[in-house]
């Protein structure tokens, strides 16, 4: 079961931040969205999402707030904070650089 490895965890963080970039979402919605986006490639257990959420919340990158869903149930909606937004920007840049670097390595090989 275990914890996600460094790479996966970093990826997961990035995915979470990306998912809620435009509108706050609750846990299940985030999980569904991540599954969609990664086209089921990322084999992350839904459960490991929640520790990640709490960690991000503790780090101040996202903020949770209880609110009613469209079906009227109470859910905790997570939204990006200002530091979260900056972090996302940095991570996307890093990710892009990394992708480019991998591209270069592959091309030169």
């Amino acid at each position: 079961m275990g914890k996600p490895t460094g790479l996966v965890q970093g990826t997961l963080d990035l995915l979470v931040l990306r998912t809620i970039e435009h509108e706050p979402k609750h846990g299940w919605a985030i999980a569904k969205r991540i599954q969609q986006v990664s086209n089921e490639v990322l084999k992350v257990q839904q459960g490991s999402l929640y520790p990640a959420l709490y960690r991000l919340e503790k780090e101040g990158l996202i903020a949770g707030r209880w609110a009613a869903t469209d079906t009227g149930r109470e859910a905790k909606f997570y939204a990006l904070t200002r530091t979260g937004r900056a972090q996302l920007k940095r991570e996307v840049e890093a990710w892009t650089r990394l992708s480019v670097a991998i591209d270069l390595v592959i091309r030169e090989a």
Partner: protein
Amino acid sequence: MAPLLRVVPWLRRRRAEQEIRRELELHLALETRQNLERGMPPGEAARAAHAALGNVPLIAEDARAVWGWTWLDALAQDIRLALRLTGRAPGFTVLCVFVLAFGIGTSTTLYAVIYEVLIRPLPYLEPAGVVRVSEERPGAAAPTRHALLSNLTFHAWRDAGVETLTALAGYERREHAVTLPDETLRAAGAGVTPGLLSMLGVTPARGRLFAPDEPADTAGVVVSDAFWRGALGARTAVGSTLLVDGRFHTIIGVTPPGFFFPDRDVLLWTRFEPPRAAPDDGNPRVTAFFGLGRLRAGASAQSAAAEGTTVAQRLTRSALGRDLLFGVGGPPVVRVRTMAAESTADVRPALLVLSLGVALLFLASCANVAALMVGRNLKRARELAIRSSLGAGRRRLIRQLATEQLLLAATGGGLGLALGWGFLRAVSALSAGYFPAVRYARIDAGAMWLTLGLVLITVLACGVAPALRAARAHPSRQLRTETSAGVALPGATADNRRLRDLLLALQAALAVALLVIAVLLARSFVRLTAVDPGYSPENVLTIGIRVPGGFEASDERKRLMQATLARLRALPGVTAAGGSNMMPLDGRAFQAGFPVRPLPDEQRRPAVATTLRYAVTPGYAEALRLRLRAGRLFDERDAARDVLPIVVNREFARRYLPPGAVGTRLMWGEPAEAEIVGVVDDVLKDGNDRQPQPEMYVPMAPRDRLGTDVLVVVRTAQPSEVLPGLVADHVRDLSPYATAEIMPLADRLSLSVARPRFAAVALGAFAVVSVLLATAGLYGTVSFAVARRRYELGVRSALGASRGAVIRLVVRDGLRVTGVGLVLGVAASALVATPLLGGILFGVAPLDPVTFVAAPALLAVTALAACLLPGLRATAGEPVRLLRCE
């Protein structure tokens, strides 16, 4: 700050936990609904949702871990668990805490005392170079206990130029009456030669010290920081005057806080100039005082002593005074010893023996706790195995065990420090009279951390490591073997047992050695107090009156004495009152010397006889109840005669007079003739442990000198509560500035044996603690052995072994170990400890047979009890009870 912030969310954890649960529930509900919408049957939908999410409690736990308060939860759980387990084994807990507390209590106390007395450096610049200088005559019986220097040697050495010392100084202790605006108080002081304080390297906090070339007639006084803050209220400035002994002195300086010389009770320093004898004086005035110097770089104490001895032996002038002060013996020898060594010389061996004992005691208590823990953890091997097989990680187990042990250590350590504090209070109260340094001993942070650190290490090393080893290897085998026979536990190997037996034997040895010493000291103390001092101290009040600024001349003091006596004799209940120039246990000595006509029958007699010379008024002998052995005391017949009547003690008669001493005539200055009119019993003036010395009593005459205090003794028919108050009133009547020291003679006597009493009580307490510890260790071990062999003992009983046989089986091992310890302890105390005690003991041989039988017997009895108790408990009731394990 950071740990606090981490605790804050912990306080809100209940709400946070609910949130996690609600979130996960919502997730499951939404997932299930989606699955239903995709057409799954209801049961299948829920199961799939669960499968997709994963292990819900684990997720919750991981989420909690993010918040970082799990360690606190685990700690709370560990403490809860530890308390519960502690409650389940109260005997073990109490024993452990007791052993730790006593071990720590005694060792911190003694560490504090030893540090204060032996280790703390003297508050002087480079204290190692400060030396005491004294002289003695080899073979002479000096009349004083102190090592002193004579003014003759002092000046001769200074005049010759001191090579090996940078400075040679002298001092004497003084007792001052200091008159302040609203009271006159007594203060201990010291008269110092002008260079002494600067030689010690003191920098005054204010003002200055005595200058080496200070004119002899300046009446300056240097006061201590304590006196300046206390009596002077930190207000009086340098340069103002202070009335000391009725004379105006100028305060020239204040010493820095923490400085003391020569003892902490000394509050002020005045000038002291050793008298210089005129070169042509046939019988120069001789005084003796304490000599002090500082070694020049490169010089040793030996070379300084050699230089001083050369100077002293060059002094050929005979001086009667010198004979009186230093006794009659070989040519003078100068001794030089470092002050640090000298000031602790008399207590050092005792304290070293004691600290060795403390170290052993501390080790013993640690060993006891270790033995108890090993035993207990073996018993718990099963519990640990269960925990381990249920998935408790190694780290979790260590943490749990450590928490338990730390809880024990903290309780034991805390109690121990409290106990140590109490011990220290008791010790300083007991030793207040003669051992003032102890009053300043403190359990400081250093001592505290040292002991606590040692305890923690012991407890963790003994408690955690073996238990883990026991639990680690094969939980399953552990579980199986334990339930069947209760034997072959890992950790209970022969090696372990031998080590434990050795520790137990050593403890018994230590306990018995301490017991021997304590009993010896106690018996010695009893002997000491049973000695006949030659007077009877009950219902006698001693009074010392000092009037500063008046009564300077001896005849004035004598009038004061007569006035005082007249008033006292008129008081109801007073049966006798008398005055003298000295009295028992007052620390004064008026010595007289006279040439003895050679008597044909004895050759060993010195050419000069020395004796204590009491000048007394009528009533003195009656007040002290001196016992007349032959002849008579003074009476009115003496006034009519032209012959000086003398009463001597038996020692005087034995040494200097022919048999049938009464009636012997002596040549005695003016009046030319003296006659021995009576012989009284020896008075042990300087304490019960002293040998009798020659004493003579003469009626107080106009030319007799008195000390600075007017001394009076009063006997009442009954113990009197009001007399001290009446005396004090009377003294105030005489002069508002007068101070009186009023003390029952019995108290003086009790104070004079305070030191041996302290030694006996301290060692006694120490011995009791070590016996208790040894017994506790033995009890713990035997109980453990019984618990381990429970099943076996049950089988034996069930098969028909008698109760006695089973008990014998249990007790045998414990007693064998104790026996070895007893032999070791007795041998050790006979070989090592008793020779060290030889000089301290009074009236008891170091190898006193009573002691050497009683001490081991006492320990044997407690050991037997410690072994029998678990045996009896195990064999009480039905054997089947033993077979029903757990």
